[in-house]
């Protein structure tokens, strides 16, 4: 990622003289990258052309070297303004003209220097600390009166994503959604990433966690065993779900059904529709899922695997939940906060079979996190892309097939 950037401006008869070509060649030859912005080519011979070039490098020293090398050819550094800051008028209210974030890496210019925004996420504001030495994205609801918030657009810049070096499906960074595309190579690429991330996670490296956000269709469709295996093998490190996924997972353990359907027999069992309620009731009676697992009440399955592996689970409630299970966060703002707290450190996100949790998680993820959205319904990955998570790779397939195939590629034998 090229975190060191500077924009330069070049004007004059830079096209026919090949001065523009020379400057761009110099940038590349020295190991930098460039984006051409605002190129204007003179319409007549007399009219000059101009170009704004954004240069990116991996180090400040290289950036300085490049700037030094291209300045004799007329490239002048743009004098950029500092960002403007205003104080929040009251708790939970941003200044009128607040800057609304994207989920792309973002920097603000403070005292003539560019500063990275911590924990970038779409649709938030930017909070600057009192010393002006750090800045982070902040949700509207968490703003306190008097907080220093970036306003306007001056002195704020978004850094476009660089194409990753890996030549895998994530390298394209575009959410083409099609049921017709072959899935095999996409799943193979995801598996390769997961193997690498598990290794990095074991070495406690940064950004090595795999997050799975899933819906209950994982259980209904028969993906429970595969997901359990993935968690037990250390491939999944964070789980986001709702009341239903947890309830049906444990229903399957207690009654062998999912929403009343026998998972092996494949048909409705008498009074099966009550099973999830009875499951929730039993867990409520022991106080927590953890207690249910450690006491031996719940022996197998996704929740049991999470407890045993120490995988944190955020369960977010919805308006139609039964129960809910102990641990389900019913205040959606608190749920969002709990999910947000686990995002730093995520290196891959799998959003499987849940419109609600996929979109909610997509909103929290920086664009730099490779993301896969799996759903039988093409509208889910499409919706995710439409809401801005353009980096998500859409996979139109059934959750159980996806998880089973993924687990198989990762070494599960059935």
């Amino acid at each position: 990622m090229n975190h060191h950037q500077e924009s330069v401006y070049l004007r004059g008869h830079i096209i026919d003289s090949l001065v523009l070509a020379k400057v761009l060649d110099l940038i590349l030859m020295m190991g930098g990258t460039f984006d051409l912005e605002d190129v204007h080519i003179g319409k007549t011979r007399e009219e000059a052309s101009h170009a704004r070039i954004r240069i990116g490098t991996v180090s400040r020293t290289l950036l300085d070297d490049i700037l030094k090398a291209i300045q004799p050819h007329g490239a002048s550094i743009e004098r950029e303004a500092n960002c403007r800051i205003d104080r929040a008028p009251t708790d939970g209210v941003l200044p009128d003209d607040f800057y609304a974030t994207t989920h792309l890496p973002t920097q603000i210019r403070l005292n003539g220097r560019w500063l990275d925004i911590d924990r970038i996420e779409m649709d938030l504001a930017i909070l600057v600390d009192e010393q002006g030495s750090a800045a982070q994205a902040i949700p509207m609801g968490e703003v306190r009166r008097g907080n220093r918030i970036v306003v306007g657009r001056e002195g704020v810049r978004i850094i476009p994503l660089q194409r990753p070096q890996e030549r895998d499906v994530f390298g394209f960074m575009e959410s083409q959604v099609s049921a017709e595309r072959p899935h095999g190579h996409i799943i193979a690429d995801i598996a390769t990433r997961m193997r690498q991330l598990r290794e990095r996670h074991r070495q406690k490296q940064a950004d090595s966690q795999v997050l799975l956000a899933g819906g209950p269709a994982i259980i209904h469709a028969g993906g429970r065993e595969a997901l359990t295996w993935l968690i037990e093998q250390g491939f999944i490190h964070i789980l986001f779900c709702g009341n239903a996924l947890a309830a049906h997972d444990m229903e399957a353990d207690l009654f062998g059904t999912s929403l009343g359907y026998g998972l092996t027999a494949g048909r409705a069992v008498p009074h099966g529709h009550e099973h999830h309620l009875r499951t929730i009731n039993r867990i409520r009676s022991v106080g927590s899922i953890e207690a249910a697992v450690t006491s031996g009440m719940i022996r197998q399955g996704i929740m049991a695997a999470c407890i045993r592996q120490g995988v944190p689970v955020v369960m977010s409630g919805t308006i139609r939940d039964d129960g809910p299970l102990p641990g389900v966060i019913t205040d959606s703002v608190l749920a969002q906060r709990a999910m947000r707290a686990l995002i730093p450190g995520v290196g891959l996100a799998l959003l499987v079979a849940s419109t609600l949790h996929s979109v909610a998680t997509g909103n929290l993820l920086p664009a730099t996190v490779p993301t896969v959205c799996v759903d039988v319904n093409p509208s889910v990955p499409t919706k995710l892309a439409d809401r801005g998570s353009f980096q998500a790779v859409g996979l139109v397939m059934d959750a159980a097939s996806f998880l089973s195939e993924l687990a198989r590629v990762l070494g599960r034998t059935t």
Partner: protein
Amino acid sequence: MSRILVCPPDFFGIEYEINPWMRLTNHVDHGRAVRQWHELIRVLEQDLGVILERMTPVPGLPDLVFTANAGIVVGRTAVVSRFRYPERQREEVHFENWFRRHGYEVMTVEAGIHFEGAGDLLGFPEYWFGGYRQRSDIGVFPILSERFHREIIPLELVDSRFYHLDTCFCPLSGGELLYFPAAFDSYGRTAIAERVPDKLRLTVPIDEALKFACNAVCVGKHVVLPAGCPATQDWLRIRGYETHPVQLDEFMRSGGSAKCLTLTLD
């Protein structure tokens, strides 16, 4: 009738080193330099019929003789040079005063931008070329281009022996060009080739380039050039030019020849 600004070499000599040709140990035969300069003047006045304007020489300014670096003149506007080296910056006020006294509207470029006049800005009526990197800054050309409504194609000078554009590049009145390609990088050579067709370009051989064959003065179909450049002369004659070789080797000790000693006024 062409008018050209010159400055008698009363105080010409080598008093500092600001280009690879200059050596303080190189003794200039002053009497010989003066005779060579008068021969140049004779050719210009008598053979070419040029009207000469003479500046008053100033003691302590040995390079004032190189009037090509006074600035550029376009119509009644003169853009006064801003020299890179302090040694020559002291000439600026004298050139500026001369232009003012002779009724020119004087334009100066902003401080911090170097520009060494007609030494680095040459061309054809339609468009000009600007030499940069050694003496002039590329940043001056967009300013001049806007002011005079001319396209100016910047060319980087990559060999310090050819430190001004007029030492390696000489556009002629018929659209031809004398030049020494190795003084430019590949971008510059390509840009030149894009503008001047093959058959109109003469690549000056290196031995003549080092005698500053390109530092020639073209007036109509006459070309005044340093003596000792037979290949360049032959080519010029084939192209229909009358050539006037003048021995100017005393000035070469300072890194200048015929063109450096003149500034075309109109």
